């Protein structure tokens, strides 16, 4: 169970992400947003429930499907939108794009385009915290597809061996790109893959926001007290294709129906809010997103010459 105030914050974040992503999908069709885009529609609950409990000085790493995580971690939606439009006021001055969002000020240490590439990075950040003796934690989001990659194994062993304050959050949506999980592994549940390592681990329904909030909250307080590592597997649903443009011929229509009933926003609204309050929250988020789009459109492109300045730290 979560209290009213927390529920309100979560719903607001989820609507912010949902409307942001829907707007990005539209803008992609008219090429105002270009390139390779991966949307988190359906995954808002996990992003909000996890990041909403973290501080700016906790580090979050994410994969290629990172907009929701960045926004939930505190990246301003207007600067994320500007980044997706490649403008100078984007988080990364337009240099990174969707898969390479960074907002260091809010502890969003980066998305990555290479599946699982950020797992060992999260470990490094956790080690730094451990050495400094602070209670900051390191969180890394990844999908079920990343679990078969070698760096997952290497990272897991070290995290367990050194007992680092890192929380691995696996969004298991049952697909890696265009192939379903049973073509990738004989183990259905990601939390069972780490079973040999004695990790504290749990699997929750990613559409049940209070459940994610509660489970992550428990891991978080243990991590702050010096415990670790942890694996939280959230069963989620990827509403849209792997990337925008993916025809999704590989999906089963019955599964579609079943999961449309598991929209995290609809469920939280039904359980915790009356319609007027929920509608108001949605409207406020819509206003924010429209303002973000205007901000982004008004932002110019950077002078291309800046590329030479960004290669090396001075």
């Amino acid at each position, binding site marked *: 169970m979560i209290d009213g105030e927390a529920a309100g914050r979560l719903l607001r974040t989820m609507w912010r992400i949902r409307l942001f992503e829907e707007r990005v999908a539209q803008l992609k069709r008219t090429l105002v947003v270009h*390139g390779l885009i991966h949307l988190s529609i359906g995954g808002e609950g996990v992003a909000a429930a996890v990041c909403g409990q973290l501080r700016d000085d906790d580090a979050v790493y994410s994969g290629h499907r990172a907009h929701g995580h960045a926004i939930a971690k505190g990246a301003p939606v207007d600067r994320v939108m500007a980044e997706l439009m490649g403008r100078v006021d984007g988080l990364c001055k337009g*240099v990174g794009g969707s898969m390479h969002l960074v907002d260091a000020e809010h502890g969003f240490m980066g998305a*990555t385009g290479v599946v699982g590439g950020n797992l060992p990075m999260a470990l490094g950040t956790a080690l730094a915290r451990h050495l400094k003796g602070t209670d900051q934690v390191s969180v890394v989001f990844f999908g079920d597809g990343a679990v*078969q990659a070698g760096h997952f194994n290497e990272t897991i062993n070290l995290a367990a061996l050194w007992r680092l304050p890192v929380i691995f959050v696996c969004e298991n949506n049952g697909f890696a790109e265009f192939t379903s999980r049973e073509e990738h592994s004989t183990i259905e549940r990601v939390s069972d893959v780490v079973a040999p390592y004695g990790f504290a681990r749990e699997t929750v329904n990613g559409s049940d926001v209070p459940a994610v909030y509660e489970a992550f909250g428990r891991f978080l307080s243990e991590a702050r007290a010096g415990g670790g590592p942890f694996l939280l597997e959230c069963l989620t649903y990827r509403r849209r294709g792997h990337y925008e443009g993916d025809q999704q011929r590989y999906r089963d229509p019955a599964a579609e129906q079943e999961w449309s009933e598991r929209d995290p926003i609809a469920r939280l609204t039904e359980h915790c809010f009356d319609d007027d309050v929920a509608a108001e929250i949605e409207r406020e988020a819509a206003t924010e997103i429209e303002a973000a789009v205007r901000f982004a459109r008004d932002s110019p492109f950077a002078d291309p010459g800046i590329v030479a300045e960004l290669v090396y730290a001075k």
Partner: protein
Amino acid sequence: MAREIPYIAAVEEAIFEEMGRDDTVLFYGQDVAPSDDHRFVQAYGRDRVRVSPISETAEIGMAVGLGLAGYRPVVELLMAEFMLVAMNQVVNEAPRLRYMSGGQVKVPVVFKAGYGFTAGWAGQHTGSIYGAFMGFPGLKIALPSTPADAKGLMTTAIRDDNPVCYLINYLLVLEHGDVPEGEYSVPFGQAAVRREGGDVTIVATGWTVGRALAAADALAQEGIQAEVIDPRTLNPLDTASILSSVEKTGRLVVVDQGTRHGGASAVIAAEVAEHGFGTLKAPIAQVTALDVTVPYSEPMEAYVLPNEEKIAGTVRQVLGEAPVAA
């Protein structure tokens, strides 16, 4: 008989047909034919066509093991940068095992990947990193720039008894072109003269071949006749054809989508500087990407890459018809 088909279909046709001729050819990788209804699976079965998880070291390492065991795997790696995840297998194992064994074994594998997708795919998916691979003897590199070459070079890659990095440029996948039906192979180490001309030699790779041809058309309006050469394979590299062209024209502009340092253009420029010095009437010039990670935003991305204007401008400089840039 040739007919017009897109580049991407030509690649697939080569693999499909070659698998029909030689049942030691396998095809696998991420998202390769996950459905049993896919024509490759229907034709060749699950022994030879499989989908694999995101496990580059295993995917590429398995190819090495399959090669040692007498098979000819084609591994779909999707993007050239994903080979970096398994760098050891690509450069330290596959191309070195034959030599270290004193010639006892061979590793006949094809690493198929896309590169250069400069359409907003951003810093980690967009590079042209094959130049670095030229430094690993034993590893061949093919860069088809036309649909016909896409088919012909893939056929040769599969038949080659060595590891081959077969790289398709993602910007070319929908380009249509005449592709011969049936068995068709293009030899490695044989450059193609895409356009003849006597004033300057432009050597260009992959997608930049089209840019060079467009620049050549523009230059022709100014009375400059450029010869455009497409090496087609970087290893083996047809230096002889390049030198013979430079002997005719006296001027060389090398164009490549990769960076300036550690890239294909540096190797080609050095070969001509060393072996064709006496034929040169002007210094060699290179048109490459800037030495930066490819940025996401469209104007920045365009700024960083070679294009028709940069190529034409460099040709004019080399002909002494434009002031040398600061």
